[in-house]
């Protein structure tokens, strides 16, 4: 779950609906978004977020916002990710959602389809927001039936983190941007063998509760897919997808990676952070944690290795949204517009908490920890990123993934058998949407 906790975790659907221009004006009542409040407006707003690491930057954002809008008071409501959407769902049910809150890819369609989110139409028409300043993939992710509902806040891709000291100890050449699966597998195996007396493993990643930094990427690298482009059928029974899953089952089976039990007791980020794993598939959300690691001087990042079919990483980003039932919609819109501004996003980048979505502000994030070489996350976004898989009720089949796939990665059942069962169950859920 650690991944999901971090900034931009889930989803990065992008190309789902390229035909739709993000913010076409409203010919539908639901699309008439509210406008922005004047600077002397008085209001009290609640802003719900889930990442404690980002709180200092958010507090700074609010302070800066209050220089323009001194009488809009914003209270931050911090709920850990594990409870965030449970709480949000209950609030949605009683129509008491926070005025402004974080949204992610897997959930946006559910909230938008139930008319709980305010479209951005008013902001865009009033000239207070320019969607072209954000990556197109993210605008598309937050667009549902012709209307855009979220202002992209940040985005993340996945790369290969490695520990130089452990590579040197094991006498293995450092990873490069040109690595393939074979290079990666060989290095992971050698390091695990040579450093086993120290309890060091070749590679760790999240396999128990999310695929963003592991099998979502390897499935794409093998040429498979998690969900069809129109979001109606599962791709888990595609032989290429199965090959992508097999990568991890093999790494666990030959001891290059710790077992699923070991990665549940001690989370993957902790294995890597404490110098007990030489490689770590993870996103740029790990920067905030790893820059405080005692081993930080040994850490570096390169692109994910090239699979049998291609290079690939999923891309996802968070967005800020305004509740359709907010009583201070115009004040909320003013805050929303500020959070999407270049200034606010640059602040977040400079404080090293998130890789901002606003074009041109990312360099500040890259510079926040120069030794990690984190421009690789931006390059990956430009050159090899694919939309994060979502549908209208993503959570329903995410639960199936988390229930079934660990059985395949742990070696309890053959990968192909589990993948086919998952595809059938997932298709059943998709049919209900």
């Amino acid at each position: 779950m650690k991944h999901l906790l971090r900034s931009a975790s889930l989803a990065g659907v992008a190309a789902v609906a390229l035909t739709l221009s993000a913010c076409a004006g409203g010919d539908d009542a639901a699309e008439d978004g509210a406008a922005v409040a004047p600077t002397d407006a008085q209001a009290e707003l609640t802003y719900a977020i889930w990442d404690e690491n980002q709180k200092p930057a958010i507090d700074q954002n609010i302070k800066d916002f209050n220089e323009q809008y001194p009488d809009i008071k914003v209270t931050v409501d911090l709920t850990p990710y594990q409870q965030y959407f449970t709480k949000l769902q209950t609030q949605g049910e009683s129509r008491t959602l926070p005025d402004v809150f974080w949204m992610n890819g897997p959930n946006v369609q559910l909230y938008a389809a139930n008319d709980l989110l305010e479209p951005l139409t008013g902001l865009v028409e009033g000239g207070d927001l320019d969607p072209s300043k954000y990556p197109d993939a993210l605008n598309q992710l937050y667009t549902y039936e012709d209307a855009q509902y979220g202002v992209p806040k940040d985005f993340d891709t996945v790369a290969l983190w490695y520990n130089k000291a452990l590579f040197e100890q094991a006498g293995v050449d450092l990873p490069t941007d040109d690595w393939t699966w074979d290079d990666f597998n060989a290095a992971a195996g050698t390091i695990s063998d040579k450093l086993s007396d120290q309890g060091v493993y070749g590679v760790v990643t999240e396999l128990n509760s999310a695929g963003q930094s592991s099998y979502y990427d390897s499935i794409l690298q093998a040429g498979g897919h998690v969900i069809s482009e129109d979001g109606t059928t599962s791709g888990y029974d595609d032989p290429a997808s199965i090959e992508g899953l097999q990568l991890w089952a093999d790494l666990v089976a030959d001891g290059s990676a710790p077992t699923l039990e070991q990665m549940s007791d001690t989370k993957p980020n902790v294995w890597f952070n404490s110098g007990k794993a030489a490689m770590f598939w993870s996103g740029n959300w790990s920067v905030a944690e790893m820059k405080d690691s005692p081993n930080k001087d040994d850490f570096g990042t390169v692109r994910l290795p090239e699979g049998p079919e291609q290079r690939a990483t999923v891309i996802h980003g968070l967005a800020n949204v305004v509740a359709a039932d907010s009583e201070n919609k115009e004040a909320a819109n003013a805050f929303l517009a500020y959070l999407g501004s270049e200034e606010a996003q640059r602040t977040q980048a400079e404080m090293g908490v998130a890789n901002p979505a606003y074009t041109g502000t990312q360099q500040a994030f890259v510079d926040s920890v120069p030794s990690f070489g984190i421009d690789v996350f931006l390059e990956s976004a430009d050159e090899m990123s694919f939309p994060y898989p979502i549908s209208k009720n993503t959570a329903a089949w995410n639960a199936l993934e988390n229930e079934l796939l660990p059985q395949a990665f742990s070696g309890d059942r053959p990968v192909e058998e589990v993948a086919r069962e998952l595809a059938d169950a997932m298709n059943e859920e998709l049919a209900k949407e």
Partner: protein
Amino acid sequence: MTSVDRSPRAGDGLASPARGSTRRAAARTGPPRKAPAGGARRGHDGWWPVLFVLPTMFGVVLFYLWPIVQTGWFSFTEWGAFGGQTWVGTENYVRLASDPDLGTAIVNTLVYTGIVLLGIPIAMVVASLLSRPGMRFTAFYRVLYFMPYVAMPTAVAMVWRLIFNGDFGVLNWALGLVGVDGPAWTSTPGFALVAVSIVGLWTSLGFAIIILSAGLKNIPSELFEAASLDGASPWRQFRSVTVPLLTPSVFFVTVITVINGFQLFDLLYALMGQGNPAIQETQSLVYLFYNEAFLRNDKGFAAAIAMVILLIVGAVTLLQFRMQRRWVTYA
């Protein structure tokens, strides 16, 4: 932690109904046959007693009975993503009956409750030791034993997670000293349930000790004097005086422990966490409910699970009250 609030009240009534502190407690806990006097007097008092009970009844009806009725209704519906119920008849129950997770959850819950119940004999021994004449620092020991019970389950679980950690935990380190290669306790099916039960036993011990200590204090010392005058050995005194007179307290602790056992959730959740490969084999009834209601957002189905839990706890508690006549001695 609600049980902390309600236990002392209920405890008084159960542990010493002879003192008859309140009629309500006596009526609730005493065997029905013993209450004719109370019943007769109620006729005299007219509506007064009802008036006094009214504030409590208000809370019980509003916060317990009405939600139960609502849950019962919800269990026959399907919930939309953000509310809105559609009547689906008994579909949820039919689905539940064929759900393999239900059987697993019931067995796990029973095993957990069984292991935690083992704490009662342990608590009896400790309470007896604490109430020995001449024992020093008893207050200190009581605090020590009770602390785990009042500590936040999450905080307790955090510490135990570190102890149980498969690679770096102190438990496996200790086992390693004697040449045993311990498992990842909280992430391996089978072991995880044992690990959770051990922590459950440990946290509930303090509560049982306090109640049993209070029960011991209520045994009149003349009985022991008389017994020793008659030449009864300490062991005989324990068996023939202490144990029978302690049975009301034991009964109370058993009822509470079983109910708490069936409500196992927070400890399991905090100890194992989400994304644990062993959770499916280890889940309890309430975890199953949580999973359906809040992770899968299938609240109608979850309501059916809640009704099943209610029925099981109700049936077990009823059975316990029926059985108490056979072994509980009220002085």
